[in-house]
């Protein structure tokens, strides 16, 4: 990790792994859209599977490591880049040459990190270490906790802001990761660029729509 390129490779690999995880996570969340009775049972069963299966446990440790490494190296890179930038200019219009979100990856990432802390505390920590009620099948009733949380407007707002941040982070991040890894041949460049945007749209819209759906379905008279 003593070259700039090696550090960026780590950012790209961990970032892409996180993207892959988000796809799985979104698919899992789609169960919240099922009819109420079915949604509760199935979501709780799924949660149990995701926390007890050995293979998924291994993946989840990889995931924790990725988040930590990605965030730590984001900080290392940002500090070193700040030093290399030598303070900038008295009159600075460099921003006109690149999209803003490509320049604010660290800020966007910090919003995501903040979200992750709240999200992990409320659902992951509660599930693992809290005392949850049991559902009809005898599984921990995470479904009720989730539905209850999404009844609060500030929570919906917080989620929406966080996922917009994620959206911009990935709008630059996905295709940037392929460029960083050097896997960006001319023949595939359009494909990689536009599928990156497509993936970003699916993830962002998906994660924003589900809490809003839950709010209207379970908290509106």
């Amino acid at each position, binding site marked *: 990790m003593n070259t700039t*390129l090696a550090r*960026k*490779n780590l950012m790209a690999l961990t970032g892409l792994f996180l993207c892959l995880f988000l796809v799985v996570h979104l698919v899992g969340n789609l169960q919240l859209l099922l009819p109420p009775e079915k949604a509760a049972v199935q979501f709780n069963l799924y949660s149990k599977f995701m926390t007890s299966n050995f293979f998924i446990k291994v993946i989840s440790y990889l995931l924790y490591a990725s988040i930590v490494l990605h965030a730590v190296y984001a900080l290392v890179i940002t500090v070193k880049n700040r030093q*290399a930038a030598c303070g900038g200019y008295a009159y600075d*219009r460099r921003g006109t*040459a690149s999209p803003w979100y490509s320049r604010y990856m660290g800020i966007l990432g910090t919003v995501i990190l903040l979200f992750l802390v709240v999200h992990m505390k409320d659902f992951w920590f509660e599930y693992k270490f809290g005392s949850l009620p049991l559902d009809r099948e005898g599984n921990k009733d995470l479904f009720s906790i989730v539905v209850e949380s999404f009844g609060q407007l500030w929570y919906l707002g917080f989620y929406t802001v966080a996922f917009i941040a994620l959206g911009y982070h990935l709008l630059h991040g996905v295709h*940037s990761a392929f460029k960083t890894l*050097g896997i960006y041949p001319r023949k595939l460049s359009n494909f990689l660029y536009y599928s990156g945007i497509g993936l970003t749209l699916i993830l962002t819209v998906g994660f924003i729509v589900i809490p809003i759906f839950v709010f209207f379905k379970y908290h509106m008279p």
Partner: protein
Amino acid sequence: MKLKLKIWRQLNANTPGKLVDYQLEGVEEDMSFLEMLDYLNEKLILSDERPVEFDHDCREGICGTCGLFINGRAHGPLAGTSTCQLHMRSFSDGDTIYIEPFRGGAFKVTRDLKIDRSAFDRIIMAGGFISTPVGDAPEANAIPITHDEAESAFDSAACIGCGACVATCKNGSAALFTSAKITHLAKLPQGKAEAQQRALGMIAQMDAEGFGHCSNTKACQVECPQEISVTNIDRMNWEFNKAKVLK
């Protein structure tokens, strides 16, 4: 035309500098930007003031020596243009023009608008060459690559090493410069043999000089007077990873 200039003045690398205001009358729109500075310097010399020092050499856009940060942009407002190829017709009467030296990475101001860009030379010395004498330019049809490949190698070779990429990068990264040199030779048969050690050597030197990481914002290709493409950076990353894996 009458201009208000705000120019970075600094005695040497060890003293702090500041922007100094100058009023300049009688500027003609056919003057190049550097001729405008010459014209200012004549006036300064006549009034016993120290002239503004700046880098320049060919004044025809091919050497990469000139390079000023003009009104917040590397090489000023025009796309694909070096400072010496910028003319005063790109400005209007009464304009205020900020003129600052390129900053970032290993670049250091030596005086006024002049900077030390020797870090680029050291990056080249770390592998930006072919060690065996390969003779004069061979007859074009004798090179075992297609015309398109030869053209694309030439596109990379067009980098004049002015440093606008570093100056405009939010991270002070020299990725565009270094990658253009690595890619130029990696695309040609003469350069293939040493491609791995060249990539590793030049990247190690780029890091040792203190340049930042590439965030792929692509601002560098926007400001580059030679319009060097960021796809060179993709190729550099590929060459680096290939060299690391095969080593």
